[in-house]
């Protein structure tokens, strides 16, 4: 007993001492400290930290403090609601409509003189992603697109021309069927293609069929093109028998490169993003791969892709908006955007991306991804504030269809019905808010 009380007292004192000590770094003396929440970690975070250091060393009024935050959207909302937001944060474009609609982020229009950039310099789609309802809410620091990645060795091995990717979705299905190798115990030694990988964009497949989720006015969840896309998804489940595949990468800690089939040479073709080259370099450098535009149904639509970007935003209630704007301006300088792009295997969201020298760029297919970003068939996530709920519904529909619990028509009708209700609720609410003013 005596010993335990001593231990407790020691622990207590430790706790109090630790709790009382302030930990402000000396380099911030006299400077305005701008807190920056960064969603990236690992090497992507390193690149941002290096730029922040460069900024901090180049002047002595402002100190940017970079913090790595996971589940950043939720944390941001909580922090803003709790009156304790950071001054800048890195947010994915898909969250902008919701945040802007709720007045959770500050429009940057008034700060433009400090930031000092021009719309004309940016690739159209990315500028569009930064805006919502005629205001500018952020500026991009990383631009991405997605494409078909295929394993040339597997093609060669199966007697297919290794440098010729499928030009239509039907060709892709054909190749997938040919490359599939099933083991005795029912699991798969080799898969040609499976629409549940990587599992991050269950909503994206409809674009290759000419469908979409929102047409600017109405919810279009169950339009015929979407149903066609989900029929195609379900066809794979029927071929493979969903049981034999570890499916959905849902939840926390779900995705692991060490498990990834494409990386380990067990999946011939996959829809993946521009960052893929970096991870291949790191985890499977011997992989002989290439990339091309993911083919559409019947080959009718060319260069379909999804464009996403990460952007710097200023949360509502940020205490150092002007200083934040200065840093945003700094990050938007072409040389800094280029540095980040090189480190992340991405490209700059600027029109000059076309003319840049990519001989040193780590991603050998970089020109493809840039081309895709300027395609008329480059899509983004629907720009509506109820997108989070919509995405949940789509995931649910995708899973039901994959597990063959519902037909695509049924699943999408359900999504249509539910989201129409939520959309109506949202519109009513918006109306009420306007009337209040």
């Amino acid at each position, binding site marked *: 007993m005596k010993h335990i009380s001593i231990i407790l007292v020691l622990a207590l004192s430790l706790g109090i001492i630790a709790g009382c000590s302030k930990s402000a770094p000396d380099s911030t003396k006299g400077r305005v400290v701008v807190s920056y929440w960064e969603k990236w970690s690992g090497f992507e975070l390193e690149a941002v930290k290096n730029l922040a250091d460069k900024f901090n060393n180049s002047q002595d009024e402002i100190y940017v403090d970079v*913090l790595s935050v996971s589940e950043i959207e939720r944390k941001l909302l909580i922090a803003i609601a709790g009156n304790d937001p950071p001054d800048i944060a890195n947010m994915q474009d898909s969250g902008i409509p919701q945040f802007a609609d709720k007045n959770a982020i500050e429009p940057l229009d008034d700060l433009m003189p400090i930031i000092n950039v021009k719309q004309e310099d940016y690739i159209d789609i990315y500028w569009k992603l930064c805006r919502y309802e005629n205001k500018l809410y952020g500026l991009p620091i990383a631009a991405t697109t997605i494409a078909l990645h295929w394993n040339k060795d597997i093609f060669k091995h199966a007697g297919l021309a290794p440098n010729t990717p499928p030009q239509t979705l039907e060709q892709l299905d054909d190749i997938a069927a040919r490359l599939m190798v099933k083991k005795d115990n029912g699991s798969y030694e080799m898969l040609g293609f499976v629409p549940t990988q990587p599992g991050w964009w269950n909503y994206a497949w409809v674009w290759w069929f000419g469908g979409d989720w929102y047409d600017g006015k109405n919810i279009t969840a169950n339009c015929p093109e979407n149903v066609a896309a989900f029929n195609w998804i379900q066809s794979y489940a029927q071929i493979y028998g969903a049981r034999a595949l570890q499916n959905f990468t849902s939840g926390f800690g779900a995705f*692991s490169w*060490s498990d990834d089939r494409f990386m380990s040479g067990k999946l011939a073709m996959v829809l993946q993003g521009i960052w893929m080259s970096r991870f291949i370099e790191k985890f499977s450098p011997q992989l002989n791969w290439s990339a091309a535009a993911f083919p559409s149904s019947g080959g009718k639509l060319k260069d379909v892709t999804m464009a996403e970007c990460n952007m710097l935003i200023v949360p509502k209630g940020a205490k150092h908006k002007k200083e934040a704007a200065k840093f945003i301006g700094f990050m938007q300088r072409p040389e800094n955007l280029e540095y980040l792009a090189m480190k992340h295997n991405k490209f700059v969201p600027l029109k000059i991306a076309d003319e840049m020298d990519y001989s040193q760029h780590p991603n050998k297919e970089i020109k493809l991804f840039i081309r895709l970003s300027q395609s008329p068939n480059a899509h983004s996530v629907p720009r509506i504030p109820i997108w989070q709920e919509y995405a949940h519904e789509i995931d649910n529909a995708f899973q039901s269809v994959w597990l063959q619990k519902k037909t695509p028509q049924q699943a999408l009708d359900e999504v249509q019905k539910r989201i129409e209700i939520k959309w109506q609720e949202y519109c009513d609410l918006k109306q009420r808010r306007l009337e209040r003013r």
Partner: protein
Amino acid sequence: MRKNNLVKHKSHKKQRLLSSVAVHTVLIIGAIAFLFPLVWMLSTSLKPLPETTKIPPTIIPSKFMWSNYAHATTAIPFWKYAKNTLIVCVLSVIGTLISSTLVAYGFSRIQWKGRNAVFYCVLATMMIPFPVIMAPLFVVFGKLGWIGTLKPLWIPSFGAAAFNIFLLRQFFRTIPTELTEAARIDGCSELGILLRIVLPLSKPVLLVVALFQFIASWNDFLGPLVYLTRENTYTLALGLQFFQSQHGGTFWNYLMAASSLIVLPIIVIYFFAQKAFIEGISLTGLKG
């Protein structure tokens, strides 16, 4: 007569031996099932990353990568989070001990009108689901300016949780009234009685309460998830999230190494406090 007894005795012994073997077998199987995940966690923490998902799986790592532990503690600000977690735990335990003993004393050693009715109210609060208070509590903390600090995680423990009040009250009731009456007659104040008579007798139970609270705070996930916004206030439970990145996937070996490190202090504390802990639990006399 004697012969009968001897026969009975022998078959009794045989029965006892059989039942003992049976019991041990079941317990061993159960123990393997209960221990296995921990063993697996430890095993994974020492493997190089590709081996973690290899089929067929290996229990003994091909290489003992002790460096995983070093990496786990540097990949995230492990010690900072550990410090935060420790602060929350220690302060919560202090808060719990102080408030629960005071309150339990009030419910057991002082006779006052309406005491039992209010106590049932206390018990009833155990029915309040956390989600009911989660969001408004968050707004309250926001207005108090506590969001962004560790305060939401430990200050409420100064308000005495129903479960602890219940445990301590049960125990306090078993202390003979003669002891306290004698002290009262001598002019001792209630607080004096609590400090000088009741508490010294209650050490095992207090240890139980402290231990339960420490473990609960150490392992708490939802609270930190909702109330901690600044990365430098994160606790270990939240810190585990950093072993995965946006497209980067999960590093199982580091994650398991970090998890093992997080579990370790608790196991050590429990190991040392075990005897007193079990003693304390049985003294609470959880009947009625």
